[in-house]
């Protein structure tokens, strides 16, 4: 008992200034979280370190979780992007544990192998991908007041994988949009906005050209929007959306998109606030969730970073905080998030992408030292 209250007391006495921003990172809580009996039992989580910088950043998460004595333990599996398929044991483990933390899997360009990331999403029906792009306090960027959540349909659209050569030199690719998938992603987006006190949902589309396909997507969004009168709903064409993102990003709140546009919008938004090294995210379906770096563009395969052990663990640490909250360990989530944000804000230990020259380990140690 004494051991548990000591850090609490210390925190109350020193009372660091609460961090601004969403999620209420360091705010002192006035009402405690009352768990159900047994909620403190350690929970198994499937871990896929993956390729490239993956093992480095998942290693950082493991260390921090251990230092916090977080009530979870990892079942680690070796999966690599060049495998023909995700091993069944991994899928079974995720089905059992419901929650997975993933480092990142390389996707070979133009090879015969299909993307393992996509296989995981399809197999577990993780239909929503979520990236949270918000300014991290203390990190200088070109844009201020950015706090965007991109919710992307993850299973169909341009990523259907249906392609064929009609005659030599002419290739067709099918974009498939269904009412079912459009409706459930719209539902998820509005539910997310509602549960997180977000005020606006913006649907991104190109229905002026793809009248039927993106038209169906919009129609579904409008139907769901009608059920949430307290949340503002608007629509924006994808090219204009990207232009607005780079000039006035503060106008956006929650964005809901078909597959490909979401990929682009999320990466653009991530670029605005510091890049993929700091953006948390994950994929979620009815029964399972995989947490990973929010936007992964070009990050997995950076051999240089791996060699020098200088990959940025911040994104995956923040994703892990999302995971802790998802597992209903809110206080652990807050502590982790506060510690990570404090390290970034202090600025002494930052990796190269944030203008510093620290190694992954140095950042991880700093986070552990800042745990309240």
């Amino acid at each position, binding site marked *: 008992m004494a051991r548990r209250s000591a850090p609490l007391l210390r925190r109350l006495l020193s009372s660091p200034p609460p961090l601004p921003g969403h999620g209420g990172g360091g705010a002192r809580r006035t009402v405690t979280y009352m768990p159900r009996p047994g909620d403190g039992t350690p929970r198994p989580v499937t871990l896929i370190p993956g390729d490239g910088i993956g093992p480095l950043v998942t290693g950082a998460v493991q260390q921090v979780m251990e230092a916090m004595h977080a009530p979870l333990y990892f079942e680690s599996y070796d999966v690599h992007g060049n495998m023909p398929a995700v091993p069944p044991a991994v899928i079974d483990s995720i089905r059992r544990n419901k929650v997975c933390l993933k480092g990142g899997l390389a996707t070979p*360009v133009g090879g015969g192998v299909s993307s393992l990331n*996509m296989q995981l999403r399809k197999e577990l029906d993780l239909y929503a991908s979520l990236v949270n792009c918000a300014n991290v306090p203390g990190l200088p960027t070109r844009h201020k007041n950015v706090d965007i959540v991109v919710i992307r349909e993850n299973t169909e659209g341009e990523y259907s994988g249906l392609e*064929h050569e009609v005659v030599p030199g002419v*290739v067709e690719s*099918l974009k498939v949009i269904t009412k079912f998938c459009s409706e459930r992603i719209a539902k998820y987006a509005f539910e997310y906005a509602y549960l997180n006190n977000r005020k606006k949902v913006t649907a991104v589309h190109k229905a002026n050209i793809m009248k039927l396909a993106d038209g169906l997507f919009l129609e579904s969004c409008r139907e769901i929007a009608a059920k949430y009168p307290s949340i503002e709903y608007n629509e924006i064409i994808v090219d204009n959306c990207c*232009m607005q993102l780079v*000039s006035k990003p503060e106008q956006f709140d929650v964005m809901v998109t078909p597959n490909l546009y979401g*990929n*682009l919008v999320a990466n653009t938004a991530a670029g605005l606030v510091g890049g993929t090294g700091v953006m948390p995210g994950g994929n979620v379906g009815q029964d399972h969730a995989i947490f990973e770096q929010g936007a992964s*563009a070009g990050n997995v395969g950076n051999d240089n970073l791996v060699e020098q052990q200088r990959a940025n663990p911040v994104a995956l640490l923040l994703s892990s905080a999302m995971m802790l909250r998802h597992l209903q360990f809110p206080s652990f989530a807050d502590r982790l998030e506060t510690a990570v944000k404090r390290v970034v804000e202090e600025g002494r230990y930052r990796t190269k992408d944030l203008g510093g020259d620290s190694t992954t380990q140095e950042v991880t140690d700093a986070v552990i030292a800042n745990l309240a």
Partner: protein
Amino acid sequence: MALRRLLQGSVLPRMMGRSVGASFSTEAGETIRATLFPGDGIGPEIAESVKQVFKVAGVPIEWEEHYVGTEVDPRTESFLTWESLESVRRNKVGLKGPMATPIGKGHRSLNLTLRKELGLYANVRPCNSLPGYKTRYDDVNLVTIRENTEGEYSGLEHQVVRGVVESLKIITRQASLRVAEYAFHYAKTNGRERVSAIHKANIMRKTDGLFLKCCREVAEKYPEIIYEEVIIDNCCMTLVKNPGTFDVLVMPNLYGDIISDLCAGLIGGLGLTPSCNIGEGGICLAEAVHGSAPDISGKNLANPTALMLSAVMMLRHLQFNDQAERIHNAILQTIAEGKYRTADLGGKSSTSDYTKAVCDHI
């Protein structure tokens, strides 16, 4: 270096072998006929600005003005008349203001009509930060080249069963080679060092794969130009973090649409972005890509910069390099000085005051 290239501007190369029918002569005394579509809304005002500037700079161009009709022309299935299209085909060169397609059925969109009828296969947009006009990005100096005829914009869509819709993306070897060829040709004639092909071939292996294959084939013919391939999501992120890393970008239709607008956003919006469409047989149709802004039309408030810069691209295409240079510098100087700026750039000047300032700088 970058500034010098900016001031020199860009030469729009005509494709070799395609411009047989379009032999331009720039000898003194000869006038060139060009088609002008002033367009709707603010179009006529900003077109007037261009005419004034051309007059002051002594550009020997005679405009053939064409307006969008009030009735659908059955020969084009659009409000654009056959005569207008013939005019562009004959002159091989044109300038177009913003056009608003009237809502309704039974006719094609105006832009689509132009694209299809004139075979405009490549859209070229140079994006340069304007010296003196502060945005969050001041190191942008890139050119986007977009395939304009196929890809996701094929218009082929159908409902498979209720609630399931398919849309076809078509990539052909012919169209991909054509746009790649133009991109490398452009890079070479404009002293650019690098061409980046933007794709998503890790997911769309066959379609985007074919596009990449064509780009690689063309790249081999231009060993002096560096060729690289960038996945579109990574491209988006790099553009907003560090746009200075890109030079010439070539891409399929949808990606081009998105990236070119994103780049326009970097330098201050569509009101400052010139654009030019390259068509079969050496046609060059320069255009302002912004909207017709009906809310400020007729109020002498519109910003004519985009149309002026597009007109400069047209002049370079005609190899009126001297006049193009002078007009371009005059525009840059006027904006850099900041005394005469229109409302969208945070100034108070009217269209005519701004135009006069540009004319004075020539």
